[in-house]
């Protein structure tokens, strides 16, 4: 009741301190949150009208545009023992698993991945925080990997399971993960990158493999990817929103 009155009073005033606490309350009100979040459907729907799985490509830049200092955001070194062991041998023992709703589950070494046809692109990385950096990425198109694994008809999303425990959780709820739909998964610029600016992918940028989804924001581009899983929906993964940051309030479709 009090809460209700406060919100109404705040809405009537429209400005000033009271209204601000009103906005804070609205911001945490579940119904209002749902209303605000509904705008994501418009952004996704609007962009899906014009962005499909083959075109358009994100703008590619020149060698001279590459950022001298490309910020490594989020985790800069996963601290699990498993990851350290892999890193000691330059990931020679890595087995990237591709499983879930696929007919032929795969387990690939880094050498096997590097032997596949690759794509190199110089693209702009836009962080949700607002900054942009330009880097060159080389990797294997995700679509090729998925084609080899043969997706089952009910596969709708591709989930990326990562080695970094960003929230240092005991139960694994802080482990980084991400998901994209098949339109983005089969886009020609969507690659599992193992090289950056002509060098093996550095640990701060996600060694041994990071996802690049060039028409979305940085947090979609999972680093330290260990497993790629095809799923029908992601409601039972993490807190059910489709990614580490999505579980913490960010949009699943990060196209803006």
């Amino acid at each position, binding site marked *: 009741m009090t809460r209700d009155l406060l919100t109404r009073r705040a809405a009537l005033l429209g400005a000033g301190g009271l209204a601000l606490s009103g*906005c804070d309350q609205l911001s945490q009100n579940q119904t209002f*949150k749902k209303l605000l979040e509904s705008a994501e459907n*418009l952004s996704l729907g609007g962009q899906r009208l014009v962005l499909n799985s083959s075109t358009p490509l994100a703008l590619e830049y020149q060698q001279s545009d590459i950022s001298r200092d490309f910020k490594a955001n989020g985790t800069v070194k996963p601290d699990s023992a498993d990851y350290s062991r892999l890193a000691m041998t330059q990931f020679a023992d890595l087995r990237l698993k591709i499983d879930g709703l696929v007919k032929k589950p795969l387990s690939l070494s880094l050498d096997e991945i590097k032997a596949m046809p690759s794509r190199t692109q110089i693209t702009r990385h836009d962080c949700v925080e607002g900054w942009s950096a330009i880097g060159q990425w080389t990797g294997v198109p995700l679509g090729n990997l998925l084609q080899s694994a043969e997706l089952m008809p009910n596969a709708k999303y591709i989930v990326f399971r990562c080695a970094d425990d960003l929230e240092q959780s005991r139960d694994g709820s802080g482990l980084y993960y991400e998901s994209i739909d098949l339109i983005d998964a089969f886009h020609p610029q969507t690659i599992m990158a193992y090289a950056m600016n002509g060098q093996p992918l550095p640990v701060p940028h996600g060694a041994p493999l990071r996802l690049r989804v060039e028409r979305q924001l940085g947090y979609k581009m999972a680093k330290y990817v260990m497993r790629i899983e095809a799923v029908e929906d992601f409601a039972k993964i993490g807190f059910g929103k489709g990614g580490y940051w999505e579980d913490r309030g960010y949009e699943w479709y990060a196209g803006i």
Partner: protein
Amino acid sequence: MAVDIANQKIAVQAGAPAVRKTRSGRELIYRHTLFVRLTHWINVLCIALLLMSGLQIFNAHPMLHWGIKGGDTDPAVLSIYGEDQLDGSAIGWTKIGGQAFNTTGVLGVFRDRDGFLSGRAFPWWITIPSYQSLAEGRRWHFFFAWLFALNGLAYLIYGFAARHFQRDLAPTRLDLRNIGRSLLDHLRFRHPRGEAAKRYNVLQKLAYMTVIFVLLPLMIFSGLTMSPGVDSVAPWLLDLFGGRQSARTIHFITATFIVLFILVHLVEVLLSGVFNEMRSILTGWFAVKPEKTDAH
């Protein structure tokens, strides 16, 4: 007398507003249609919330760059930051170009709601939400950006179809010739009476036209240019604004101009009669002040 009749005819032909008299004999004209009033107030809501949630988003990377890229270690045209002092205090700096200004208390370093020193760019009382949350700020921003864009689109269609732009906002040749006099009137805070008060004056028309056709569209397009998805389908936006980071800077500068317009707009409302102006934007009816009798 003949001239008067002729003028009246022209006024009627041009779609002059409905007129009625108050009991005290004052002339009321129907200045704002329901559609204009409705879109105006939706705009008020959207712009206020967009500005405040926009500052929340800015706080996540409190720097502005020029060009295609830019991050923490790249050159900035504007940056706001706090600097800890040895004695435990802190200074808030706002750096524009090469010049740093001490903005402690307002920008960079300020006391939060509970009185503790806080090191963010824009203070709690001007951001939505008041606490730091990029995720929630973005949710507010994009919801009201959609509402703002759809509202603006509806207004544009109405404005042309109902000839609101052509009739009420487009300056006439005569208007433009008298721009100097209008400027003087504004500087002396003299507001038109009688016939002249029934129309917008030329500076008013130009200000509204600039906001409607320049500033607000610039806001939408510079905002869209920050979207990697939109950039892939419309790379010309990047050329238009000179890159994503330039677009972000232009988004911020344009917002500043919109704030300036709103301040002038509100001052004019106060100076020209707040009751009458509020009645006209709420009910549509605007009272025309009679010509001064000493002019006869």
